[in-house]
């Protein structure tokens, strides 16, 4: 999986590309989790090009959301790919996140 970050003064965005599974969890935690801080407590995660997520990947997103909530922030999931949308719906995890679509809300 490719992890690309855009750190702007007003917004922090992470773009993920590829399979997000247990093999990628360590890299995700190492790169993405430090981006959530008390000063920058809202993080956008672009999932448009994620082909697959497994339960470990979901737990990483949940862990990230908990970290953001702890500093009064949140993780915003942007442009869910179909596989991601389906798994979030099946597991009832979708309501835990704010989900945005760039067709209506520009990144």
């Amino acid at each position, binding site marked *: 999986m490719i992890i690309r970050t855009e750190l702007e003064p007003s917004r922090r965005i992470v773009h993920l590309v590829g399979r997000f599974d247990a093999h990628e969890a360590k890299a995700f935690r190492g790169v993405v989790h430090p981006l959530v801080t008390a000063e920058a407590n809202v993080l956008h995660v672009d999932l448009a090009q994620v082909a697959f997520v*497994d339960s*470990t990947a979901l737990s990483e997103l*949940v*862990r990230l959301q908990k970290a953001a909530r702890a500093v009064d922030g949140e993780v915003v999931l942007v442009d869910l790919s179909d596989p991601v949308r389906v798994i979030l719906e*099946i597991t*009832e995890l979708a309501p*835990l996140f704010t989900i945005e679509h760039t067709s209506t809300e520009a990144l």
Partner: protein
Amino acid sequence: MTSSRQASQVNHPERTDAARPLSADAAIELLLTAASCDRLSPPRSTVAAHRAAAVVRGAIRDLESLQAALTEALVASQDRLLAMKTIAKVDFQGVASDEAIGLLLGRALALTDASAVLLLQADTVVDAAGDASAVEVCAEVARQAIAQGPGELLRTVAGDSAIVGSLDVDITTGWHVAYFRPTDRPFVTTDIPLVEAINSALGVLLAFNETHRREQVAATVAREHELASVLAQSVITDAPPTSATLDIFARTEPASLAGGDFYVFGQTNEAIWFAVGDVAGKGLPAAILMTRAVTTCRATFLSHRGRSVIDAYAQLEDELFDHLDDAGLFVTLVMGFVCEGSGTVSLVNAGHSPVVHVHDGIASAVPASLPPTGIVRHRVPALSTFTLRGDDCLVMGSDGLVEQADPAEAMFGYDRFDALCQRTHALPASRIGDSVFDAVAEFAAGTPASDDSTLVVVKHRGTAS
């Protein structure tokens, strides 16, 4: 012209039976003498001849210096080669051992003709060979030398009667070797190649030792990991409960030694409780939490004979939530019970999939009504209730089945899973289960499973006779 040629012939050295010069310098002197004796040569030619002689002498001196340097390099190279051959011939009797280090120190003592050789790690003497009574004094000399030149590979100290070397292999950082001789027999330049060769061999040996030690630690951890995995998996190897009216199939296949998938049953007076779950994550941490989930489920089943699935789930969540929250993990879980008499199923689904109810030949998913356990506390789940009649069945799998990839990286998928349940629902539970595992294996076509695979199938045979 004639008289000139005659004069030249008369004064030619080879024509005068003069002694053959013994050196280049003597030959030049002879030439200069001959040039000065030639009456036909003008004085200016004699001066030029002296200048030429000086140039030739300079060139000869340069050549002699070069020859000396080459000889010295050749000798040093041969010394180094001999030292390496000597070291290579040492029988270490099993490389990775402290005995091998001691053996090499002893050989270093003999090869360098030293009175003592010390191996130090940081400031501590780890091993020594030679004069035992001098170890402490020698060690202090070595420590001072290391402190004064911490970045140097070799230091000659104590009037050249000691050499203190640092081993430069990465894994042996902080290791030093010190060689000592009596002050009347100091080390000389030609000893250096041998010392370097011994230091190099010691460095390699220490690196082997360290690598061996790490491998032993890793092997110990692997053995303990394997044992822990076997113990973790043992909590779910129970066969499904037997019932006169219920036909139950259950199987779990971890993708590795330890997995996070589980199923668990509890039999009360007229009902069989069940739970099928998947702890997010991989390996031993997930397996350890899985064992906790299984034991909590069993305790919950025993304490909820009153058949309140929602209360049972609330108790389960209370027991597990903090552990899951601390670990940053969650459990997808479907739990409930089925009445042995009526075949009525009551269940709650906390983010688990696939859960399929085949009714009248039509498969439909039993959706989750709340997120997986361990994420949000005190959500009240919705209860799903239905009755198994005829060929109806309840199929509860894990994501390892539907997410199994084929060689082209396509997923088995939920649609294929539902269709398979629908196609096989009239079979006994065990044959439905086998069909699912077989179909997934066939689809995988050798592609390794990336996640655990778990399946529980429940059917109702009708009223017991």
